[in-house]
């Protein structure tokens, strides 16, 4: 399973591909399947996302690597600032 992520150009917010647009909430992200490269190219060109890339997701629908889980959750030391601060960061 592949998720697409990047940052909103103007605000810099971390965003996730929902199939029809971008959301700050990783729980709205969908599997990009084989179309990842084409979607990223199209969305970057339209300036709807910046610094985008594809990440592997696990069975929980969340990124596998801790770096991207922190991007999805927000800083673990400032849970008041995160979008999904309760995401478990370490592998179960």
């Amino acid at each position, binding site marked *: 399973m592949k998720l697409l992520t990047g940052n909103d150009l103007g605000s*810099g*917010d971390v965003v996730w591909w929902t199939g029809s647009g971008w959301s700050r909430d990783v729980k709205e992200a969908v599997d990009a399947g084989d179309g990842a490269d084409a979607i990223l190219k199209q969305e970057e060109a339209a300036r709807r996302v910046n610094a985008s890339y594809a990440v592997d997701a696990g069975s929980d629908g969340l990124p596998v690597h*801790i770096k991207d889980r922190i991007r999805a959750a*927000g800083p*673990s030391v400032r849970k008041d*600032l995160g979008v999904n601060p309760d995401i478990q960061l370490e592998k179960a």
Partner: protein
Amino acid sequence: MYQYDKYDQAIVDARVEEFRDQVRRRMAGEITEDQFKPLRLMNGLYLQLHAYMLRVAIPYGTLSSKQMKMLGHIARKYDRDYGHFTTRQNVQYNWIKLEDTPDILADLASVEMHAIQTSGNCIRNISSDQYAGAAADEVTDPRPWAELLRQWSTFHPEFSYLPRKFKIAVIASPEDRAAMRLHDIGIELVKKDGVLGARIFVGGGMGRTPMIAPEINPFVKADDLLSYLEACLRVYNRYGRRDNAYKARIKILIHEHGADNYRADVETEFAHVKTLDLDPPLAELERISAFFAAPAFDPNASDDVDRSDPDFAVWLDQNVKPHKAKGYAIVNIAVKPTGGIPGDATSDQIDLMADLALDYSFDELRVTHAQNIVLPHVKKSDLYAVWQKLDAAGLANANLDLVSDIIACPGLDYCSLANARSIPVAQKLSERFADLDRQRDIGELKLKISGCINACGHHHAGHIGILGVDKKGVENYQITLGGSGAEDVSIGKIMGPGFDQDGVVDAVERVIEKYREVREGDERFLDTYRRVGNDVFKEAVYG
């Protein structure tokens, strides 16, 4: 403090408007991210893990209260109500919007500040001793020289595209409070037979290949300083490697080329540079120095301090340092609350520190490379009032230079380069050692944490250093022992296999308890380590 002349202000204002247009063009799609990225980095704007991050330069760590207030204003208006003081004496904002950045830079320019040369392969913000102008042991105030170097290096056309970034520190005391020999160029101002000059150290640094800068010249006359530095940079610019970013710092050039060969090349270049008449006229030096004249200290200020409040007395002993003027003291505000985030201060805390500087410290503050704030000139009779106000704001932790006065980089909580989180480790350690009596019994102990090999948390220079690494997708922490960024500079050595986050806290505690067991007399941790060696601690941790 230095005040911009019309040229300083004009170039900063022009830069703001130039960047405003660059942002507009990027938002309108007239330039790509590949074209825009180097432009935003030249204005201190990074794209980090969660958002854009703006790094604001604080030249040689010196601020007025008005400038500090502006930092609080920016945190409140454009960020999430806090700022982060860094190991480069700068401040960073973690949640900046691209579209707000031109207005932020305009606000900064209105108080003679900017974010220029806080990124890129140029000469970065000049760092210095946070006690400059106040320390009893300095041979001269290093800040006029740091300011001269700031002006020399700002937009220097020859040195805007060096092989890699370039960091310079200037001190003027035998006690090194600025990790001077861990910079690309370290300058120690000294006097020889009454003549002011500088010892020049070149090729230090941390990162993946830590090195202590060798002395390249034991005495460069102050009149020749700019020409000599120009020669140092020219030789690096000519021979520094551009084929491999990991081998591009000047420390690698000197390591591979040899300090003697580098020195000889610099001397040849220096002889040529001296013909170019680059050194500033005496009048310009005097103009700059006049801004740093000592404040009007009260000659009748008393050295007496009422120590009857025991909490105040502890803070006095730990965080307040001697001043060169009778009746005055240097106040260190440790931005290291128990369980808190090293270097983070809220907008209200920033405002309070600005107010204290205005009311009690001749309108001056300093940022330290240990992520703390200094009020450099406080009358001893005002210390209790200052302490009460700091205490009410959660800024009176009496832990300066103790085990909980931890340097930590932003780590994987914020930084896109990091491999592991640094801040949670710092928080757990400060909670483990929350008992101030225990900390004071342990004594001076510099604990420094980096979340990756780039070493922004200075772990190589920690008496105890912690390096976070990625071990098959899991955070892992290595301990180094025996480093120092002070005048007894050394690079820490890896103790053994790494630990998880809780394990490293336990391991550090075992190291410290072993030190308490084997120390002799007044030995600091570092002294004991150097006497007994690594194995004693390794045995205590790994069995």
